[in-house]
Every structure is written in C-alpha cells, then in structure tokens.
C-alpha cells in the first residue's frame, strides 16, 4: 500500500477508492500513543475497511488478519494502513477521529476533488499534499 499516490488509472476507477493512513510523528507525539493507535484501529474496523495491512503481524485481511491480535500487538510507532471503497465510510472514520481528538496525523489518498469534498463535510482543513509527478528512467 506504499506510495498510494503513484497508482495509475482512470478518474472513474478512482471514484470510490481511498487509501487511509495514520501515524504519530516520531520524536514529537509518538511516546505513549499506543492507545490512540489502537482506538484508531477500532474505529476503522467498526466501519469495515476493504483491506488493512500490518507490518507488525505481517498480514492483511485477505490473509485472515485478526483485528484483536493486531490491536494487541500495536506499539507506539505502528503505522495504520487501510483502504476503503465507500466514501461514506471514510467520512465516518474521519468524523470519529475528529470528535475523539486522538491527535494522530492522517493522510487520505484519492482524487483531490473527492478528498477535499470529504474534508469539507467532516469540517477539516487539508494541511498539505504529496503529488505524483510520474516515472522516468529505465529498468
């Protein structure tokens, strides 16, 4: 799921395609944040992601990832990486994260217009963005 902004496809194929990642900033707000990461995972699992991957358990949902096992193994530097295919689920997750003021950083990859529209509905002000400029070179 890395480099989500380099995925290529038609605008239509990205319409209901969102990658959501969350993590603390190492050295700034990561100490003692395990409960916040665990709560983020609970909110995501409650909404029903299309998939979620874990560097900690080396699994994803297609491999039978156990949510409780993943939550139990969470550490202060565990990144959260998942994807959704329904806009409404992304809206609900961001709403809960905002309401509960967990304070972990969150990035959402998707068509810019769609992500901005989600942020507007949730009441978030997008901060910054990473934009793909394509590929060069030879293999």
């Amino acid at each position, binding site marked *: 799921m890395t480099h989500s902004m380099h995925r290529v496809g038609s605008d239509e194929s990205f319409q209901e395609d969102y990658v959501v990642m969350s993590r603390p900033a190492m050295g700034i707000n990561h100490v003692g944040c395990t409960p916040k990461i665990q709560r983020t995972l609970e909110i995501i699992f409650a909404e029903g992601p299309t998939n979620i991957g874990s560097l900690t358990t080396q699994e994803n949902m297609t491999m039978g990832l156990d949510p409780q096992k993943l939550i139990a193994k969470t550490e202060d530097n565990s990144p959260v990486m998942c994807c959704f295919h329904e806009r409404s689920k992304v809206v609900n997750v961001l709403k809960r994260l905002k309401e509960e003021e967990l304070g972990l950083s969150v990035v959402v990859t*998707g068509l810019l217009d769609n*992500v*901005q529209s989600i942020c507007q509905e949730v009441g978030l002000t997008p901060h910054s*963005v990473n*934009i793909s400029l394509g*590929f060069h070179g030879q*293999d």
Partner: protein
Amino acid sequence: MKINQELCVGCGQCLPYCPMGAIERGKDTSRINWDECVECGICIRQVKCPVKAIYEPKETLEWPRSVRKVFSDPTSKHENTGVRGRGTEEVKTNDVTARFKRGFFGIALEFGRPGVGTRLGDVEMITKVLAEEEIVFESANPLTFLMEDPRTGIIKADVRNEKVLSGIVEFVIPQENLERVCTKIVDTASKAKCIFSWTIITRFEPDGTLPVVARLENIGIKTSKNMKVNVGLGRPLRED
C-alpha cells in the same frame, strides 16, 4: 537469504514469492541468486517451505550487505530515522512536523521498484546533478546517510554495488527554484540507469488551492489527480 541445499527438495513453491525473481530452480534444488537478492525477507516470511530450507545467514547483517535489508525489508527499521521502510514520514505527519513549510516544496525521488530494484550507486546520476544545484539533501533520510559527502551527492564506495528494492532521495527547495530544479531533473532523467518515480510535497494555500500544479504544467510536467492529502488531524498542529 539463502536456501539450505541439504534440506531443499526442489519443489519450487518459493519461486513466485520473490519480487526480484532471484530464486532459481536447478535440477534438484532451488537457489537464491546472492547478487540479485535484496534481502527483503518476503521468502522467509511468506513461503510455507515444506522443509524450512530458507534461512537468513549471518552475512545478511554484516556491512555493507546489511544495507540491502534496511532498504528492502519494510519490517526493518532504519537506525538513523526510527521509521520502518525506505524513506521518512514525509507528508504523513507534516501537520505536526512542519517539515514542508509555506514558500517551500519538498521533492522526493524514489529509485528502483519491486521487480527491478536499484544498485545504490545508480542514484548518483541524479544526486550529483542535484548537488551541483546546491540542493541540501534531507539529513534524516537513510540514503543521505550513505553519501560520502551530501554536498557532492556521491555514494560511499563500499555500498555502491549493493542492490536494494528502492531508495528515496529527499530534499526541500525554496518555491522560486521550482522550475529550475524540476527542469534539471527531467533533463537528466533520460541518463538514469534505473527507473525512478518522483513526487512533490506542498502546503495548501489558505483558500485550498494548489498553484504548484499550474506552474508544473507550464514546464510540461503533468501531475496526478490522485493525491495523498494530509487532512490536518495531527496534534499539536504546526502551521509553519
């Protein structure tokens, strides 16, 4: 990684798992091409080897081969960043770190990809040119750590031939240098010895617009509409 030749039964189940195609099937056993293996560890983690023949030899963790694992195995942490994976936290935590401020752009070039990889020395084609432009490479980036001198962009001799899944070069430029630096990268790209992808990181303007998109289009660089957006939930929030 290696395959114990005494144990291997040559079933070939491990072959499709290697993202570098570095596992070769012989007459009776399979072997890992030691020069092509990037030590990503996917074989040892994911293959259900019936005789448990795949193992990590002690040489994997010895310098300079040890850099292969830290750049290629997403489960290993870089000692100098504390972050798992090839790069830094880039835009993911920019609302808290303010690494990329208004008036500046972050640029990241990732050399190699799963399936092709890169020799660490191959990134010099671009890093030397960028150094001539007096680019200051990100000090917290693992690849900068492997430069002989970040002011020259030259990679340390003892790691130049090490093959990794990919390595990311990161730096920040003042916004007035955008066209000059990006044009330089595009002009040099045809000489690159390996595949690379690149990205730009920027703050949204207060009105939510991204003027960088039009500036890039004016010099012939197309941007993707599929973007990675930091939605501003991190706390404490740092505007700049």
